[in-house]
């Protein structure tokens, strides 16, 4: 299955129509989710009143942050074992996007935290710290790749870091249950299924799916750019070998 996707040509053909489709669907889903979330659903006084509407951005961002890191680690693993170039291109493209979504999660959480918990930031909170460090990991991944002189080396170094850093994600997921935290426990992604009220749950899930599709679309666009870039470099190398 991997080898089927590993062909850059096939990927280019696929993403040519898949990426626009992702964008269109995500616009619909996010639009509906936000419309519901910002205007239609009743506010929850226990979660800080109107500010709780930021949930429809915060929670999808948090999910995507974790998922994107895992995706990057998996892609790195595939590249490390099978050396499929497309997997490396995918990992490289996911990193900046993952960093953005992680930053959104941090920013919205922080904005939400001020009225509800009375603080922007809590240093000894395991969840906040581990999300912050996941953000650092994304930055470190990009900095490491940038500091290597060849693509091959950048790919190898990045893959090692992404795989080793993957230990962080389970910690984030379970930190809330393991440690006392200001943060509430999971109520959607739990073993017993969602426990959230349906008015909130549906718009939230729609937003979540929308963000996922947007992420997928952007990843494909970045990957396409990278593939073009590599083709140009290869052509140049060939020219120089001949000339």
């Amino acid at each position, binding site marked *: 299955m991997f080898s089927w996707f590993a062909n850059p040509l096939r990927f280019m053909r696929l993403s040519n129509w898949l990426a626009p489709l992702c964008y269109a669907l995500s616009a619909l889903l996010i639009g509906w989710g936000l419309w519901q979330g910002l205007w239609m659903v009743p506010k929850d006084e226990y979660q800080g009143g109107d500010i709780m509407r930021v949930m429809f951005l915060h929670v999808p961002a948090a999910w995507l942050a974790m998922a994107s890191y895992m995706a990057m680690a998996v892609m790195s693993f595939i590249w490390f074992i099978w050396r499929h170039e497309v997997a490396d291109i995918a990992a490289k493209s996911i990193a900046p996007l993952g960093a953005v979504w992680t930053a959104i999660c941090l920013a919205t959480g922080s904005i939400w935290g001020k009225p509800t918990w009375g603080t922007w930031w809590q240093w*000894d909170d*395991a969840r906040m*710290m*581990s999300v912050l*460090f*996941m953000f*650092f*990991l994304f*930055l*470190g991944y990009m*900095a*490491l790749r940038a*500091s*290597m002189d060849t693509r091959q*080396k950048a790919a*190898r*170094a990045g893959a*090692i*870091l992404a*795989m*080793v*850093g993957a*230990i*962080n994600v389970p*910690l984030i997921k379970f930190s809330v249950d*393991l*440690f*006392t935290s200001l943060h509430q426990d999971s109520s959607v992604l739990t073993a017993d299924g969602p426990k959230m009220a349906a008015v909130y749950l549906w718009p939230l899930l729609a937003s979540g799916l929308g963000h996922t599709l947007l992420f997928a679309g952007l990843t494909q666009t970045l990957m396409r750019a990278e593939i073009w870039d590599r083709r140009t470099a290869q052509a140049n190398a060939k020219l120089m070998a001949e000339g």
Partner: protein
Amino acid sequence: MRPAPILSAFQQALGEAWAGGAGALLPLGFFAGAAVLVPLGIGTDPQTLRAVGPGILWVALALSSLVTLERIFQADTEDGALDLWLQTGAPASAIAGAKTFAHWLAAGLPLALLSPLLALMFQAEASADLLRNAALYGLGGLAFYFWGGVGAALSATVRRGGLLISLIALPLYVPTAIFGALSMTNGPGSESAPLFLAASTLFALAVAPFAMAAALRLAAD
């Protein structure tokens, strides 16, 4: 698998850590310096100092391991010794692990052993807890060194890869730091924290050597 090169790598690293008259003492001096400067900075209210003590030691341990580790593999890369170590026939992971362990032994362990003294300077009560804490510092430090080794190996070709190694290693330090700090409080969860600390150290010992080996092959490439 030939064990002789691994043993040699361990002995050489241990010797090197102590060589130059001062190598291994760097973190000690660092640590002691911090211990002297901190009260100077934050004042000497015993209450504050006691509250701050254990945490400062964790921070010092993390920072000092970063400083030491940056050199472990960078020097080897620059002077060509890495090329020799990669051609011994022994697995690179075992050699990297042996070297890292030696550096922990030379620099990390002394820090942990010194910790009761520093705790006393920070107005802690003398009690058996200080010895228990020293063991926890030792355990946590070992994890710090192994994760830091991964960062050091990854940035070995980048001269002055300082920020890089901090960016890479700090996130890996977090679980250990959280469990370590937690295990020295009386808060909820503090009882199981030492167990989690030990688990995270074991995990580091199991995973980090392979990551280091891959990174070192890359540095030699």
